[in-house]
Structures are given as structure tokens and as C-alpha cells.
């Protein structure tokens, strides 16, 4: 029987994964862009609905408090992954779960984000937009049964698209995806990210028009000595960034240490504080870009800008730390504009050389705080450049940004997004370790079978256990969740001092080093050397969960077993990140 003439056509339509990926890049970009626009509209609509035109003081207090009760319930019961910004969660999904974001996260983030920001919390919309876009991309990747690598690749593509649509800066969005989400400026996803970013911004502009987020004044470097003023701005930006990061982590730590039963009302506690703040400073409500615009165009007095800088800093720390859904992208720009405006005004009044308009300093200040808080200096430079479209801004911007970045990094080595993840017991791989490694990794060396004793075990019983294991130390904990390590020496000392019946939980070391499955051999050996003969290998996304242990014996055994095998033959554990 002769084959049907339609069949060759159908065969030609057979899609290879490359084609699917390219088509998906565009469709996901469009959807991510649309979701970002819808999210912006939802925030505005919610704000108008809840506050009306000129709200009373009572309404200022009640709206954020009551709405935070609602979102608190939703966040605890249905969308626990939707708290906070969304950028660190997206990073974690990209690096640790091969881009897997549960479908409900995108919906939950949209709903709770719109309610939180719309009800007056001092938070930004860009971070949530990134997570919503990434969540959509992950869900679509699953529908298409894409390979894990391809599905993972859709995450930064969607992030670039969402940010591009939310902030109307397509170049900065691509750089943000590379610099922050992927952590590698040379990533192979540059092309896809650019296509996605452009597609998303076209969609956003076709709906909202081509007006920029900010009406930026013409930038002028009036006198070369003005660069000194930008050095001052960089220092101030670094200090404010540091204050913001430290304050946020400190207060969030306090909230996290509160009893678990308070988790549902914690956002409302933040909401109440925000409500009181809004009575006196309604300017810190929500995203607040209209006031950034005013600072950029010389519309705010020195005193007002200084006050708003402090109050916005406090309000954002409270909103974020109490577990509401919203980002810190916009607040960092707000703080930068105010801090820059203050420095600019002071320079304008007191500098012994001619200076530019305070609005120019506010503009550079935005990039400076962004570099200090978000720690994405390249994104900050390109973002401000895209806003101004003026090459003159580059040199002062880079000076101020780098100073702020260096100060912030020196006193707070871990970036804020990563530190927030660490507070949630998630450890992302260091930027250098994100490049796929062909060397031996902890996953290759570790022993998956290990003994873990309960913290209530007596020293005498623990000593028996260690004798039978032949190790120099034991893990202490329950259900593969370790709490510490107890060494043979410690147990023997306890026995000698008559503490045979004491629980090991009272003696164990809790500040031991750990490794992750993707750590290279040299890191494993270095950390093993610091520990008492045992190095726990834990999950990055749940750092108390032990995957295996590395001991001197296991290292020796591994080397013996593999000395004749080529490096590339060594299998890497499937569920550990290959990066």
C-alpha cells in the first residue's frame, strides 16, 4: 500500500526539542510579560479598591492589618512558597530543583502579592513577577515533558521576560537573569533571554504604552570634581544598603524564631505596624514609584527625602520580615532615589564646585542602592543607562555602584537574596561552583549508609555505638535531620568526668562544617579536616537533611576503588545538582 501524501508533511512537522524550546521561549515570554502586566494592574486595582481616593487614618491602619490576616492564612495554608520576593526562590528552583516550581506557586504569588502590595505593604512588584513568570515556565515545561535541562533553561528566560515587562528595561532584564538567576554572565541562555525579553517588552508596551517607569531628568556631569560627590554617594549607598540588609535579616530572624503557631498572624503584625506608619507617611505605601519620580525631578525637599529614606527602609524591613509577599527590587530603588536626592541637594548647596541637579544624584543613587542591596552591579549600571539613555551617566554610576557594592559585600559577605535563603535552610552553590565541574564531588565520595543517634542517647550508649561503627564521630539527630556531631574524644572525656548517663545532645558540637553533594573534592577534604573525623553531606534546599557522610575511611575507599577509572566515567548522583 502506498503511503499517504499527507504523511511527509506530518513528518516535516515533527518537532525537535530545539524547535519546541524556541517556540516555547516566545510563548513563555509573552505569557510572563502578560502576567507581569496583569500583576501590576492587579496591585493598582487592589489599592484603589481598598483605600479609595483619600483614605482616613482608620482605613490606613485597618486595610494592611486585615488584608495581612487574609494573606497570612493563604500563605500558611495554601502557598507557603509565595512569601517574600520570589527572586531567591526562583534561584533556588533553578539551581537546586532543575527549575521545578509547583504550579500553585505562580497563582499563589499573584494573589498574595497583589493583596499584600495593594494593601499598602512597602514592597516591590518585580520580584513576584519574576517568580510568577518562572512558575508559568516551569508548569509549561512539565506539560511538554521537556528534558530536565531544557525545563531548567526556561526559568531564566521567563525571569528575563517578566522583569522586562514589569520594569520596561529589556537589556537590564537580560543581564539580571544572567547575573542573578543563573549567576554566569557567559551562560548559553543569552540568546533565548534576549528574545524573551524583547518579546515581553513588546507585549507590555503594546498594552501600557511606551512611557518609561520614571521620567528621568537630563543627566549632566557639571564639573569633574563632581566625581568626588559620587564617591560620597557610593559610601552612603553602601552604608544604607548594609543597614537595610542587616536590619532585614535581623528582624526576619526574630520573626522566624517566634513560635510556629504565630506564623499565620505574623504578616498581620507587620500590617499593623505598616498601617500606623502610613498614617504619617503615606508616601511609603506599596511600590512608591511616583515618589521616586518626584525625587528624580527635584520634587521633594531635603528633609522629606531624608525622612522618606529612613521610613521606607523601616517599612520595607517590617513588611518583608513579617512574611508578606512582595519584593525588595522597588524599595531598593526608592531608597536609592531618596539617599541620592539627599546627597545631591547637600552637594548642590555646600560643595565648593558646581554640581548637577539633585535629580541626577537621585538617579545614580537608585543604581547605587540596587548594587549594594541586590548585589547585581552590572544590572544596576545597565538599568540606569536604559532609563537615561545617556552615556555620560556611566562613569559616575560605576564609581558609586562599585563603592556601594564593595562596602556592602565587605560587611555582609553573603548577598541578601542568598542570606534570606540561608535563613530558610537553603544553601545555594557559590557562584564559582555553578559552572559544571568534571572533578570528583562529594556525591561521589560520600557514604550513604550512616549511623545517627538521638540527642537523648546517653554518652555510654553512644560510645558503644561509635565503637561498633569504627568511626571517630557520630551524627546526632533524628530522621536524617542532623543537629550536631559528637566525637569519640568528647564522649571519652564525658565518661572520665562521670557523665556516662548524660544525653549527647548536651555535649555535641553544633557548629560543625558541612558539605553539599556538588562540592568538589578539595572543598570536601578541607572541611573534613576541620571536623572531628566526619563531614555530613546535606541537601542545599534543606540543610539539616543528611544525604550521606564523608569520613577519612570513605575517602580512602573511594580513591582505592576509582584510581584506575577516568574521571568522566564517574556517575553523579541524580538528585544532587550537577553544578
Amino acid at each position, binding site marked *: 500500500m502506498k503511503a499517504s501524501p499527507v504523511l511527509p508533511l506530518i513528518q516535516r512537522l515533527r518537532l525537535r526539542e530545539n524547535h519546541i524550546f524556541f517556540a516555547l521561549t516566545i*510563548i513563555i515570554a509573552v505569557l510572563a510579560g502578560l502576567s507581569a*502586566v496583569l500583576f501590576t*494592574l492587579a496591585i493598582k486595582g487592589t489599592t484603589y479598591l481598598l483605600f479609595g481616593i483619600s483614605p482616613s487614618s482608620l482605613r490606613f491602619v485597618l486595610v494592611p492589618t486585615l488584608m495581612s490576616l487574609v494573606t497570612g492564612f493563604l500563605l500558611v495554608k495554601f502557598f507557603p512558597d509565595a512569601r517574600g520576593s520570589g527572586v531567591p526562590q526562583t534561584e533556588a528552583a533553578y539551581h537546586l530543583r532543575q527549575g521545578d516550581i509547583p504550579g500553585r506557586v505562580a497563582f499563589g504569588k499573584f494573589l498574595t502579592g497583589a493583596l499584600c502590595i495593594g494593601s499598602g505593604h512597602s514592597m516591590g512588584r518585580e520580584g513576584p513577577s519574576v517568580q510568577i513568570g518562572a512558575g508559568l515556565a516551569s508548569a509549561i515545561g512539565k506539560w511538554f515533558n521537556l528534558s530536565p535541562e531544557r525545563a531548567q533553561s526556561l526559568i531564566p528566560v521567563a525571569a528575563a521576560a517578566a522583569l522586562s515587562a514589569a520594569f520596561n528595561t529589556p537589556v537590564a532584564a537580560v543581564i539580571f537573569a544572567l547575573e542573578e538567576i543563573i549567576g554566569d554572565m557567559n551562560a548559553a541562555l543569552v540568546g533565548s533571554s534576549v528574545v524573551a525579553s524583547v518579546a515581553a517588552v513588546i507585549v507590555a508596551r503594546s498594552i501600557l504604552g511606551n512611557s518609561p517607569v520614571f521620567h528621568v531628568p537630563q543627566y549632566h556631569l557639571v564639573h569633574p570634581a563632581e566625581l568626588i560627590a559620587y564617591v560620597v554617594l557610593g559610601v552612603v549607598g553602601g552604608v544604607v544598603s548594609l543597614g537595610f540588609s542587616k536590619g532585614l535579616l535581623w528582624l526576619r530572624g526574630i520573626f522566624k524564631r517566634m513560635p510556629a503557631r504565630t506564623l499565620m498572624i505574623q504578616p498581620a503584625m507587620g500590617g499593623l505596624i505598616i498601617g500606623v506608619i502610613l498614617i504619617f507617611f503615606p508616601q511609603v505605601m506599596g511600590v512608591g514609584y511616583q515618589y521616586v519620580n518626584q525625587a528624580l525631578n527635584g520634587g521633594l525637599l531635603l528633609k522629606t527625602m531624608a525622612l522618606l529614606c529612613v521610613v521606607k527602609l523601616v517599612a520595607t524591613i517590617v513588611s518583608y520580615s513579617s512574611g508578606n509577599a512582595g519584593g525588595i527590587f522597588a524599595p531598593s530603588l526608592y531608597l536609592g532615589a531618596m539617599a541620592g536626592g539627599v546627597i545631591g541637594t547637600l552637594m548642590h548647596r555646600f560643595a565648593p564646585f558646581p554640581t548637577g541637579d539633585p535629580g541626577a544624584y537621585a538617579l545614580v543613587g537608585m543604581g547605587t542602592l540596587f548594587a549594594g542591596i541586590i548585589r547585581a552591579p552590572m544590572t544596576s549600571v545597565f538599568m540606569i543607562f536604559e532609563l537615561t539613555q545617556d552615556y555620560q551617566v556611566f562613569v559616575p554610576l560605576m564609581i558609586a555602584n562599585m563603592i556601594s557594592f564593595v562596602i556592602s559585600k565587605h560587611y555582609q559577605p553573603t548577598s541578601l537574596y542568598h542570606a534570606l535563603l540561608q535563613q530558610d535552610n537553603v544553601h545555594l552553590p557559590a557562584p564559582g561552583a555553578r559552572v559544571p565541574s568534571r572533578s570528583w564531588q562529594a556525591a561521589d565520595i560520600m557514604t550513604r549508609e550512616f549511623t545517627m543517634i538521638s540527642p537523648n542517647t546517653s554518652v555510654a550508649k553512644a560510645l558503644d555505638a561509635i565503637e561498633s561503627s569504627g568511626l571517630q564521630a557520630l551524627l546526632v539527630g533524628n530522621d536524617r535531620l542532623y543537629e550536631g556531631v559528637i566525637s569519640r574524644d568528647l564522649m571519652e572525656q564525658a565518661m572520665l568526668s562521670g557523665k556516662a548517663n548524660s544525653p549527647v545532645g548536651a555535649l555535641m558540637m553544633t557548629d560543625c562544617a558541612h558539605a553539599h553533594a556538588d562540592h568538589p573534592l578539595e572543598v570536601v577534604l578541607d572541611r573534613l579536616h576541620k571536623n572531628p573525623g566526619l563531614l555530613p553531606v546535606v541537601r542545599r534546599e534543606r540543610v539539616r537533611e543528611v544525604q550521606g557522610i564523608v569520613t577519612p575511611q570513605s575517602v580512602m575507599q573511594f580513591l582505592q576503588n576509582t584510581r584506575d577509572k577516568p574521571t568522566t566515567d564517574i556517575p553523579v548522583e541524580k538528585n544532587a545538582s550537577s553544578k
Partner: protein
Amino acid sequence: MEVVKIPRILNREIVLLVALSLAAFGVFVFTRHMAAGVQQLEAKIAAVWFERGMQYMEAGETEKAIQSFRKATADTGDNQKYLLALAGALAAGNDAAEARQLLLTLRESDPGNAEINTQLARLAARQGEVQDAVHYYQSALYSNWAAAQADERRRLRIEFIRFLLAHEQRDLATSELLVLQGRTADSPPAHIETAKLFLEADDQKHALQEYEEALRLDSQNEKALTGAGQTSFQLGDYATAERYLRDALDVNPDSQKARQLLTLAELVQSEDPLAPRLSPLERQRRLMADFERSEQRLESCLNQAAGSTAGAELQSLKAEALAVQPKLRSQTHPPDSDAVRSGLDLIFRMQQAASIHCGEPAPEDQALLLIGRRHNGEHP
């Protein structure tokens, strides 16, 4: 039989891609609809704040107006009307720096906008920045105006001319006045207003033209008649002035100004010894009459100013008058033209000195001063 198997998964992908594309289109349409709704809502709220701002402005509560306009512009940042209102309120609230910044930002996107340039010009004028004000006024005046805005443009030009005159920019003011003259509406009040501006710019000839244009349209217009009379008077054309002033008094017999000027114009014409078509005897009679009147005024003034520093100057003039008197009184040799001129010069100096030291002159003395000025070339 050859059976070609098509992997089902691939068909599913095509279907999914098509479905996703359709879904994306649906979401796009929905988002556009939502965006339009939110933008309408924003526009409505902005309009409410704008109205409140205008009410505050009318009530003189500038700070509240600024706050309202700020809220109006918060979500409709590109609404020029609201931004201009904000700029106006800021300027009224003595926040000139922000108002200027705002206006300059607006001007960047629309350099030829008359309203923006007008506000910038007024701001600069208020700050005493003459060059900037001139620049913005000119930008405003020479930008595109709708035909319906002709009157508005004319008023702005008048405002600019007044500004120029107030800042001693007479040449520029005259240039603008000539443009204004070419575009003045054909109505008596418009011509009269233009004529007054010409007078302020010391351009009596063009002022008279404008008054005459007004009279062409309304020959009984009292303001135009008085203005034309006054202008003719200033030009030294006392006969024409007398004619216009008489007509003005016919229209309004109570006009003191017209009456005073008419009296003076008549006196000048009746006392001037160098008036054309006079017989030698009449010329001498007038000269002697003027001389004696001036001598008497000088004498009276000398009595008032006795012992003061002015006395010496007046004495010197009296001595000069006494020396000239016999020559002027000679019946056999009526004075020639040069003698009349030198006599008039002495009369003028006597009247001038008396006016300086002994107060306001009477109309007759004023007429003698005007005659003196007329023949000393002080009038055009």
C-alpha cells in the same frame, strides 16, 4: 504493507503549542481590557484630584493645591494639563525651582509648546531673569497656536511687551509692537490698547496711527479722540490736537483731561510768535506779551526766593531780560527771526527757572514752556 508510525508525543506538542498560543492571545486581549479599565479608573481619580487642586488654587490654599495636583499626576504622569497645573501651583507657592524643573522636563518632550514656554517665561520674569524670560516668551509666541487662540496669543504678546518696557528693552518692545500692530483685531478697544503701548514705548507716531484706526471704526470714541489729541499734542501738532480734543469734549464735555490739553493747545497756538503766516507786528506783539508775562513771573519768583541760592540765577536772568527789553520794544525796527528766536530762548529759560524754583506754572506759562521747547527742537 508499510505502516508509518507517527510518534503521538509530537502531535501533542503541536497541539499544545497552538493551544498555548491561543491562550496567550486570549490573555493578551483580557490584559488589554483590564489595562484600559485601570487606566480609566486612574484617569477618573486623577480628574478628581485635579478638580480639588483647582478649587484649592481658587481659595488661595496653594500647599493643598500642590498636594492635590501631585496626586493627580501620580498615575497620569504624562498628562500635560495636570503637570502644568502643578507647575503653576508650585510657582505660586514660591517653589520656583521645582516648577522650573517640571516645566523644563515637559519642554524637553515638547519644546514648541506655547503653554509650557509661557509658564517658563512668567517664572523667569518673576525671578528677574530677563534673558531667560525673553527667550521663553519668544518661544511661546513663535510656536504653533490654533486659530482660536489668536486673542490669547495677542494678550501674551502684550504681556511680553509690558515686560520688555518694564525692563528697558525698548527696541525689542517696539519690534513686538509692530508685530502686534499687524495682528491687532479690528476693534476700537484693541487699537486703543496698542496705541497706549506705543505711547509707553515713546513711539507717538504709531500710537497716533492706532488711535486714528480706532476712530476710523468709531469716530465718537472718547478714549480714541482724547488719545489722538494727547498724542498729537505730544508730537507738537497742536492744531490737530485741538481738533481731536474739541471732538472729545463734544462727546464728553466733563473730561477734565481733554479740557486742560485743549486749553494748552489753544494757548500754544495763540501765543507762539514763530507761528506761520503771522505779520511782523503780530509776531512782535506776541513776543512782547510772552516776554512781559515771563518777566512778571520771574519778578514774582524773585520775591519768593529772596535770600535763597536760587536768587542768583534768577537775578542773572532778570539782568539779561532788562538788557534785551529795549531791543524788543523798538517799534521802528521790529525784531527779525533770529531776534525772535533768541527772545523766545530767554523766555523759555525764565519760565523754566521759575517753574523749578517757584512751583507749578499756570496754563499760560505752561504754554510758553511748550513753545520754547517746540522751537528749541525738543519736539519731533
